[in-house]
């Protein structure tokens, strides 16, 4: 990246115990870490409640895929969690090494949602991935983890279920020249050698020019920046504007527009089958 602009984000955090430990998801996550120039941080959060439950004499689990019931044993559960953590760590390092992405791996124990909320900061992007297994959403723990992520200061990378990486432009919805979504979107476009499709609110003539200039300052040539205007910055308008684009990534700023909402971002990801980076606006120095 040729720009001297300081990157907002440093880490891409992926929770490996409940959500993203399958190889396909991890590989996609590592690719995003590479194109957004982030360190990949794997978190394996052992659910303390599960270990505590094992102390109850009647506690038992149904094991998949055999559907057999078995008494919960604290030592066995601890061992299985340990092995799962090792496997997740090995997988993480493999996919990261293949793309030359810096990685860190951390095993924590506690309430997963509270742990995520505590660890996430404004310089982080948290991966919110649909679990690969159909039963992944059965336990509410994962939803609580993602809710905690939504509520944190971190930005979110939403990966839709069954998504396949594809080629295409990076689309970014900008509410203004200083919209924090522009730098990561431009970075992704530069690193993937794709075009940057800038979606702007209708009526602000000067905005297009200044965004293009800023994109050029971020390392993109003018020919690789395209702009489109939207009647309004609603989800429907955004979906309509994207039309047949076949974009590879959508970048939005949370709260910057009507579309910059978690629920809308989730819908865009599901409808378009495309990852969405929901950037958390940073507090201004005055704040």
């Amino acid at each position, binding site marked *: 990246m040729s720009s001297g602009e300081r990157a907002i984000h440093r880490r891409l955090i992926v929770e490996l115990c*409940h959500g993203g430990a399958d190889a396909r998801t991890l590989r996609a996550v590592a690719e995003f870490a590479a194109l957004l120039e982030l360190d990949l941080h794997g978190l394996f959060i052992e*659910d303390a*409640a*599960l270990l*505590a*439950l094992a*102390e*109850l004499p*009647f*506690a*038992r*689990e*149904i*094991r*998949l*895929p055999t*559907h057999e*019931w078995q008494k*919960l044993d604290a030592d066995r*559960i601890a061992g*299985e*969690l340990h*092995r*799962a953590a090792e496997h997740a760590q090995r997988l993480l390092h493999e996919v990261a090494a293949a793309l030359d992405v810096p990685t860190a791996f951390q095993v924590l124990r506690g*309430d997963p949602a509270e742990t995520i909320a505590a660890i996430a900061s404004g310089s982080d992007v948290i991966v919110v991935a649909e679990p690969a297994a*159909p*039963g992944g*959403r*059965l*336990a*509410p*723990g*994962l939803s609580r983890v993602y809710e905690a992520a939504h509520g944190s200061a971190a930005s979110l990378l939403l990966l839709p*279920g*069954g998504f*396949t990486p*594809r*080629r295409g432009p990076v689309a970014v919805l900008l509410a203004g020249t200083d919209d924090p979504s522009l730098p990561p979107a431009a970075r992704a476009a530069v690193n993937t050698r794709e075009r940057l499709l800038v979606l702007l609110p209708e009526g602000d003539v000067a905005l297009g020019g200044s965004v293009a200039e800023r994109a050029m300052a971020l390392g993109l040539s003018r020919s690789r920046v395209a702009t489109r205007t939207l009647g309004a910055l609603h989800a429907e308008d955004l979906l309509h504007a994207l039309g*047949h684009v*076949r974009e590879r990534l959508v970048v939005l700023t949370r709260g910057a527009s009507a579309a910059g909402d978690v629920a809308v971002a989730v819908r865009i990801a*599901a*409808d378009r*089958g495309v990852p969405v980076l929901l950037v958390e606006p940073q507090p201004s120095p005055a704040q």
Partner: protein
Amino acid sequence: MPDAPPIQPIPPDRLYRRAALDALEFASTAELAPLPGLMEQSRAQEAIGLGTTIGQRGFNIFATGAPGARIRQSVRTLLDAAALARPAPSDWVYVNNFAAPHRPVALALPGGRAPALAKSMHSLVEDLKVALPAIFESEDYQKRRGAIEQSIQEKNEQAFAALNAKAQARGIVILRTPVGFAMAPARDGKVVPPADFNAWPEPEQQAVRTAIGELEKDLEETLRALPRREKEQRDAVRALDRDTAQFAIAQPFDEMRAAFEDLPQVTGHIDATRADMLENLPLFMQAAAAAAEGALAGMRLGGPFDRYEINVLVTQENHAAPVVEELHPTLGDLLGRVEYLQMQGALVTNFRLIKPGALHRANGGMILVDARALLSEPFSWPALKRALMRQEIVIEDISRFVGLTTTVSLEPDPVPLDVKVVLFGDRVLYYLLSALDPEFPQHFKVLADFDDDIDRSAGTEAMLARLVGTIAAQDGLKPLDRGAVARVVEHAARMADDAAKLTLRSEKLLDLIAEASHWAGRNGHAVATRDDVEQAIAQQRRRAGRVQERSREMVLRDIALIDTSGSRVGQVNGLSVLSLGDHSFGQPSRITCRVRPGGGKIVDIEREVELGGPLHSKGVLILSGFLAGRYALDTPMSLYASLVFEQSYGGVDGDSASSAELYTLLSALADAPLRQDLAVTGSVNQHGVVQAIGGVNDKIEGYFDICAARGLTGTQGVLIPAANAQHLMLRADVVEACAAGRFAVWPVHSIDQGIGLLTGLPAGERDAAGAYPEGTLNRAVEERLKLFAKARKAAGEARSGGDDT
């Protein structure tokens, strides 16, 4: 026997027959019309004509002839001509057998159409590699697929939500374990720690346990529904994929089908391909992903799209029956083979790796195979016979024969075989196969036996001249002038060892022409002359003449004892021919005989020490018959004679020395010296008639060279059978010496003629009283034999019988 006619040397003009070339007017071979095909091989031509036109099974051809007769080239010329009269055969392709991939299907197409099929299918697959992923990425498809997935997902979510709500209502929460799910008591959405739970009143604890027990059944049922819904989703997506793809592939497949609708087998395969594609659509999705990553997995041999390609095994581009030569007929080269690719340490194969053999390429036409090479290759000969018997080509894996591999291989469909096989090779191979292989006559009913030589006439000389010109032109050699051609023709007669024949061993003539062209270049001649041909012949002889020179040197240094002057009793110069490789030469050998009274036995010393062959022994035994029938008819044969080739340390065979041996025997019996300035060759029968032998020219020249080296005396010469006079094609220096009276070649009809010449004595004939006249050789022989009989009788009486032999 009547008096022998007076014997005269053969006149010089009959010692060498010059080429006349009267039938052709030309200054150099560049002016001659080329000679296509063969020279006067009507027998072989007719045989090949029969073999190539007869339709019945087994009428394959074995072409044979002398080494160096260019049988292969000659047969090829005839086959090329015969091929023009045959219709162009089918193209053959191998395609995937989708039901059983290890048994690829062979399809026949009209000649020349296979490449179009292969190209069409390849283009179709390439187009679909782009079109199918595009259609699956279309908004419409994605929406429909998303709807299916969402529908299933919603069912799951609803089930999960219902379960969670039910659990929550009863104060239970579902937890994810490393490999499954568990249920825990909860308060305010959080799991109750064990210590707190244990502090609850027992009824409350029991209520939780009961609730968990009931909810576990719901959890189990919810989880068991997941795989069913997954399958439901997969089936729905697969059906959607099929419907979507059907639309994309319909038109290209219909167009391709229309192009081959006259070929039901081909359209059947096109339909099978279409059905298989619909069942394997993920292949195209994976190919698109691989292409996006820059991989070429789908492009290379052994890739996933091989299954749809067409392996063009053989195509008839020339629209004519093929004529194929297979000079290295290994099993694989003959019947085709299945090759393998190494992939990740394993050997894999598919129908695209089936390679055609010579039989595939020749199918519908003719194949020319070197018989010796065929018999030298393991498995090839039996495999060819199997193919001819079954009338189909089955690709046989040699490694499976010998158990060298256990890798998965193919069993391709056999290809029906309709080919005319032409083997070519030595006559000995033909006779051995006829004698030893009972199946051989069943498969090779036509013998094309190429003559070694042809009668020499103005017409055949002219034909040979044209052949010489054709060879020179084809091989880029210098043209030959009239004198050079004449010399080549004369050399062809010498190679035939017969002035009245011309050899058909054209390979040797080709070598001679090439060398003459070389020397012409060295000598600065634009056109090869007679001298250039002479130089080429002389150089050929010199290159091969080391042993000949050593042999001559041994004689000239009196190490090998050969007299070329004077007279000796019981000693004569015999002549033999030594063949070393391609070179042969004559050399004299001293033959001697000693006699004494005995039991009527002539001892062949060569035979006694096992240096003499059966033909030589036969010749010696004939001498006994001659003596017994001519001399001392009223007394028992009481002779002991020993015959030997002096200083002969190798084997001796043939009967061409039998007349020489008889001369020495008669000389020894009659005590009449034989001239040593003459050498003798010829076989003899029991009546004393001298018979023709082979190698007469070499023999005469061998003795001439010794005499010439010592100095020709004018009395020296060679006695040859009169029947061999017609074979004479002697070297120019020999002919010149004879013309100058310094050497002579004597044509001998009978032993009486020869013995008269060698001893100076008349042989003599019995008078009315049955006695030979005084002063004749026969009288002397008979009297000696009678003396032997008396001596033997006396000795027998003294010892009261017994045989001293």
